[in-house]
């Protein structure tokens, strides 16, 4: 009786572990798609604002200062691509760690030695930004 219950629990755990594998895999695909979209958006925006900048500068009218400010904002905003790419790269590392952990959970015996399990790597996020406000400047 006890053995059957234990087997059922293990089977259920296996189902959950398989589901985690599948979800993590899908999440990775979603992030790849997101990265592609972000890259295309950044390329399009970049080309557009450079064209606008050139046309306005050629006119040398009173709107030049206003356009300079707008272009400045665009330059700051377009840096989101770098931030987002780093965040996605980091998320991929986290998913890889989770996947490795799940594999260990499904493959390794719970009675095995700790050395077989190893220690999960500590990941430190390179990007702590929650928005696109400009960063600090510090001269040494």
């Amino acid at each position, binding site marked *: 009786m006890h053995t059957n219950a234990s087997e059922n629990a293990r089977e259920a755990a296996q189902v959950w572990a398989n589901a985690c594998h599948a979800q993590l895999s899908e999440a990775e695909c979603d992030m790849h798609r997101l990265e592609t979209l972000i*890259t295309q958006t*950044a*390329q399009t925006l*970049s080309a557009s604002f*450079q064209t606008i900048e050139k046309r306005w500068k050629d006119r040398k009218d009173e709107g030049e200062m206003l356009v300079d400010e707008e*272009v*400045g904002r665009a*330059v*700051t*905003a*377009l*840096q*989101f*691509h*770098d*931030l987002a*790419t*780093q965040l996605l790269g980091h998320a991929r590392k986290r998913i890889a760690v989770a996947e490795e952990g799940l594999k260990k959970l499904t493959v390794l015996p719970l009675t095995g030695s700790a050395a077989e399990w190893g220690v999960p790597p500590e990941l430190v996020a*390179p*990007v*702590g*930004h929650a928005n*696109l*406000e*400009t*960063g*600090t*400047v*510090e*001269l*040494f």
Partner: protein
Amino acid sequence: MQSILAVDDSASMRQMVAFTLKAAGFNVLEAADGQEGLEKARGQNVNLVLTDQNMPRMDGLSLVRNLRGLAQYKHVPILILTTESSDAMKAQGKAAGATGWLVKPFDPNRLVDVVRKVIG
């Protein structure tokens, strides 16, 4: 015209830096990582190096240390432009010989001001 070497593995970031600094009258050279940056810096004299920190092959701090080991870059300003903002990382940058630490994203006008200030 003064030359600036912009080192970043993000093509869009290099594009924004180049766009900003070229508009301010500087000549901008680009490199996609620290290794390429070091090779380009060796090949010609630049007046300032602006580098990212987290890059493949060679990171920004290693690039700073390598450049400071070259006679021609002993006193050339080197700014680190990165998403990293911890005090520990800044301390490492200072110890490596960086001139300053700028956290992304940058404001174009402010970047030009800082570059003009350190380039002299």
